[in-house]
């Protein structure tokens, strides 16, 4: 699988070293191939946001905040609330990130987070419509990468979903044709699913879950799979150059499904939804 000369020399050495390890089921940081780094998830850390969460996944630190406002629906979805996802790879987080407007990596991250939330039907968007075609809830999700040691997809989805799941939004009511905010009551967002994503790196036909940034620089390619629940995927994004062999696809799906269940369990614990019926 390895193509000579494709990577600059030091990367080639790292690639070979990682490959040698992985065929023995090992990784540089001592993890097994399918093992996530330690995960910490804290919610409600930004009092001025409707919802917020910070996730530490190994050395990757991500914060997500949710704000809501009244707005007009998009013309093609007059009876649905709007979701707007913005992600920024802060220059604080890595010497590889530059200040400035979101680049293609940040835009891809935002759009993958958006897809996991939107396509999983996580939110009951039709319940957040106040006057169809005219007034709906606009849900802003802002994701910032604060410290970056590989795999920003999975903790960004976790932080966004946790922020949404714990958000307390104003209660809006229609009075005499106007939408007014009830200042006394805050309410939860109507939630159906708890999507999570699993990022898988490939070294030839070998799988390694949750790559660090060192691993990312040396692997052949990578694929992110978003799961709505135990049985359905909602989003996929192959996201580096390189090949995925047709022959490993089934294994990728199988592993990602298994890990998604594990991540969702941790998510539910962190947001206090353990055992809660959905």
């Amino acid at each position, binding site marked *: 699988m390895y193509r000579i*000369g*494709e990577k*600059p*020399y030091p990367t080639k050495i790292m690639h070979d070293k990682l490959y040698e390890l992985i065929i023995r089921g090992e990784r540089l940081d001592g993890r097994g191939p399918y093992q996530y780094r330690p995960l910490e998830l804290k919610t409600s850390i930004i009092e001025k946001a409707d919802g917020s969460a910070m996730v530490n996944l190994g050395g990757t630190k991500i914060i997500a905040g949710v704000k809501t406002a009244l707005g007009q629906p998009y013309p093609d979805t007059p009876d649905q609330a709007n979701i707007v996802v913005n992600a920024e790879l802060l220059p604080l987080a890595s010497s590889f990130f530059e200040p400035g407007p979101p680049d*293609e*990596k940040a*835009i*891809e991250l*935002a*759009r993958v987070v958006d*897809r996991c939330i939107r*396509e*999983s*039907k996580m939110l009951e968007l039709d319940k957040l419509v106040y006057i169809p075609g005219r007034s709906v809830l606009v849900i802003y999700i802002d994701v910032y990468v604060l410290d970056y040691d590989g795999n920003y997809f999975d903790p960004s989805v976790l932080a966004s979903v946790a922020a949404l799941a714990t958000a307390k939004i104003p209660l809006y009511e229609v009075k005499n044709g106007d939408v007014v905010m009830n200042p006394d009551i805050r309410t939860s967002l109507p939630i159906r699913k708890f999507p999570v994503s699993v990022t898988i790196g490939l070294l030839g036909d070998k799988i390694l879950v949750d790559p660090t940034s060192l691993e990312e620089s040396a692997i052949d*390619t990578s*694929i992110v799979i978003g799961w*709505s629940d135990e*049985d*359905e*995927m*909602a*989003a*996929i*994004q*192959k*996201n*580096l*150059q*390189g*090949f*995925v*062999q*047709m*022959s490993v*696809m*089934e294994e990728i*799906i*199988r592993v990602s*499904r298994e890990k998604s269940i594990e991540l969702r369990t941790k998510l539910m614990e962190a947001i206090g939804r353990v055992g809660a019926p959905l």
Partner: protein
Amino acid sequence: MLEKVEHRLITEDGRRIDGRALDEMRPVRIEAGVLDRSDGSAYIEMGKTKIYAAVYGPKEAHPRHLAQPHKAILNCRYHMAAFSVEGRKAPGMTRREIELSKVIREALESIVILEEFPRSAIDIFIEVIQADAGTRTAGLTAASLALADAGIPILDLCAGIAVGKVEGRIVLDPSEEEDKKGEADMPVAMAPRLGSIVLLQLNGRMTSSEFMEALNLAKKGIGVLYELQRKALGKKFTTFTPIGEE
């Protein structure tokens, strides 16, 4: 006050509303060498989707600090004409166009032998003049052909097509209506001779087994496009052979 009647996208005898079978793609037209100024170019039509692709390079990378000592850099711009869609797309690159430029570039980086041209750049421009579903995969198919037309060494041609899930059924090459109303849309691109996936995205819900069915259906469609690419190229370079194939 009228009740919403759900449009039936698939008839009882397994036909789609445009008359196609579930595993049938739209009419395709692929041509190479359609633009004179570029080093390589191609044109593709899939149904009403119409796309030009052009390649410039290898040429000196600039600004200089972007040049890579061991290989060429590949730039890719997927862009839609303002009139290519319903309504009018505002000029300038949308976030969607920026994301698609990235995934298409990454797909093409997999097949181009970049190490042959250290310190240089290869530019790929994809211009969608009409968008009617499947533009990223059709654009990639045209771009891959334009690279070959430019004589740039590649491991293989690659071609792409979307598969969808519509009213519970897996369909090949979804139309715009199927894409919008269906449950899932999954663009796939492969380098067929290498048995490798170079682009893969999913928007929408699928189970594991549906996914595998969809992936295999995509593979079938890609095989057809691959033959059309080789024919289009054959008209220009009758001797073209992907590297390593004898």
